[in-house]
């Protein structure tokens, strides 16, 4: 299997989908500069730099999506989505319903997030939960190069607006990507490591912390099941309910702030639908209710690490 970084996997997914479907196009601030290989292959009409204006980038994508194109837009960093909320939430997310189904919005929005670059809270803010809470949108956040490619291809083919979050710390970490047509369906979590004592549920880079924690827990005789959610909306409820029915214990882990984060939704679902199986409190590990600091040690400490996961899992399994 070839090895690609997520940056390259995204490029490969874009190229393949643009080859397959002439209505796919990509635009954003500097995307034609950053992905000049795509400009070479598909020309400047389908790979466009834009003015620095996230609102009109997203609005243009929504308008184009409703009328025959399949735009992928790069809004760079998740906090910049703040300038595009009307277009993403009020237009792309709602106008299908409002119009009684007259329009569909096949559009993908890319945004980087998370620590790793020391650029502070106006570049680093995991706000994916906002979009999970907004109707009409889908939300993805992969943790492996293969899923970056496979999920992006599915997102481009999906007829709904998809927010595709890129965990910055993963962007240049190489990983194996299956050869040829590799498509990963939306809404399917992945069991990365089966287990029976506790379920470690995560997405994005903290999946890797969960895997490392599972390794350490195994040494302590605790068999953890590790699940990568991948798709935050639609949520693969069956996947985590099944797991909790088996393990009776759930630890949800993400970098985003704990308060009202995606982990809260999962914990709440489990507390309702797998209550009888629960053998211990549901624990969430997530970022604090604070902006992310630029200072390296503070930035790194924001996201739960393997040690914290091990400690929490051990106390759950006591």
């Amino acid at each position, binding site marked *: 299997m070839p090895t690609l970084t997520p940056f390259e996997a995204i490029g490969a997914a874009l190229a393949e989908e643009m080859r397959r479907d002439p209505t796919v196009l990509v635009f954003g601030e500097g995307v034609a500069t950053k992905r000049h290989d795509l400009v070479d292959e598909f020309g400047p009409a389908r790979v466009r730099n834009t003015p620095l204006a996230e609102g009109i980038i*997203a609005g243009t994508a929504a308008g184009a999506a409703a009328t025959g194109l399949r735009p992928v837009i790069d809004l760079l960093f998740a906090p910049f989505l703040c300038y595009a909320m009307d277009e993403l939430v009020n*237009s792309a997310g709602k106008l299908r319903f409002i*119009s*009684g189904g007259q329009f569909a919005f096949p559009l993908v929005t890319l945004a980087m997030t998370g620590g790793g670059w020391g650029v502070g809270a106006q570049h680093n803010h995991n706000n994916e939960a906002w979009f999970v809470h907004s109707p009409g949108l889908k939300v993805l956040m992969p943790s492996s190069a293969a899923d970056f490619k496979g999920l992006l291809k599915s997102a481009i083919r999906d007829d709904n607006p998809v927010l595709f979050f890129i965990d910055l710390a993963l962007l240049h970490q190489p990983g194996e990507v299956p050869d040829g047509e590799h498509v990963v369906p939306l809404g399917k979590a992945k069991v990365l490591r089966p287990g029976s004592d506790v379920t470690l549920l995560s997405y994005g880079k903290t999946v890797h912390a969960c895997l490392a924690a599972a390794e350490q827990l195994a040494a302590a005789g605790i068999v953890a099941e590790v699940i990568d959610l991948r798709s935050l909306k639609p949520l693969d409820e069956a996947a985590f309910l099944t797991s909790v029915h088996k393990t009776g214990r759930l630890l949800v882990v993400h970098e985003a702030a704990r308060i009202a984060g995606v982990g809260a939704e999962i914990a709440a679902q489990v507390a309702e639908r797998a209550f009888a199986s629960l053998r211990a409190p549901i624990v969430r590990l997530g970022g604090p209710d604070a902006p992310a600091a630029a200072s390296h040690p503070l930035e790194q400490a924001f996201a739960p690490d393997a040690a914290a996961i091990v400690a929490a899992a051990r106390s759950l399994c006591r």
Partner: protein
Amino acid sequence: MKPKSQIVDETTLLEQMLLVRAYEEAIVAGSVAGKVPGTCTSVGQEAAGVGVVSALAGDDLILTNHRSAAHLLARGADPGRLLAEVMGRRDGYCKGKSGSLHISVRELGVMLTSTIVGGELSLATGVALSQKMLGRPGIVACFFGDGAACEGVFHESLNLASVWQLPILYICENNQWQAFVHRRETMKGEHISERAAPYGIDGATVDGNDVLAVRSAALAAAEGVRSSGRPFLLETWTYRSRGHFEPDDQAYVDPAEHAAWLARDPIARSRQRLVDSGRLPPEEAAALERRVRERIVAALAFADASPFPALDEMTTDVYA
């Protein structure tokens, strides 16, 4: 091919304006009676909407906003289905899910109506990009208010349309009001059309209460957009005679300004001109008015007979 819209005569335009007026008066009466939800009417602005729409070709696309009755009706929307939508009924163009504020009618090319002020400006560039990249002939006509021209996305939209050379006819209906605030309080200068130049876009202002003037300005503007593939900003200078949303006591309105504009009512002016010139004998004008009123009575009956949507419609049309 000459678009069929170019052979419209003023009597047809008058009929359309009368239809818009009668339709909105029916809504006002219905809302006073508690039978129809309140809406944003375009009473006083009929010429601005009807004149521009009459200048569009059949394959042109329209984006509009909360104050859309003239655009929809002039485009041929069925008043019965519109009223059904306003009343939240199943036979509304949007199955009753929209209500009055964001009615789209895709089959007529009225796309992606948003009640977010500025929403249509953010979407129009995308629709025009589709037209251009997919090689479709129609231009995009994007209606918005003077208030929307205060939103940042107005600037973003014009800038992108200019840089990407998108075929958009921007039409600012400057009706002097931005909900409960007069334009004078929110901007220096009178004319939105002057805001086009810094983006390399041409603009013009036309008397929005003269349907023929609007139509000819819009014909020229649309033709320019069509042939150049570039945007143009047309401002129709008009007045919102009623309140922002029904009901509205308009206590905040200067009575002198209001009276001056009422004296320039676009329907009365057009009717007068037609009658004076002998093109429309008074009894024919009366017949026209009667016909229009009858259509609205029938439309109201249709809408009223339409059932509310089933409760499971609450979660349909969310995802494709």
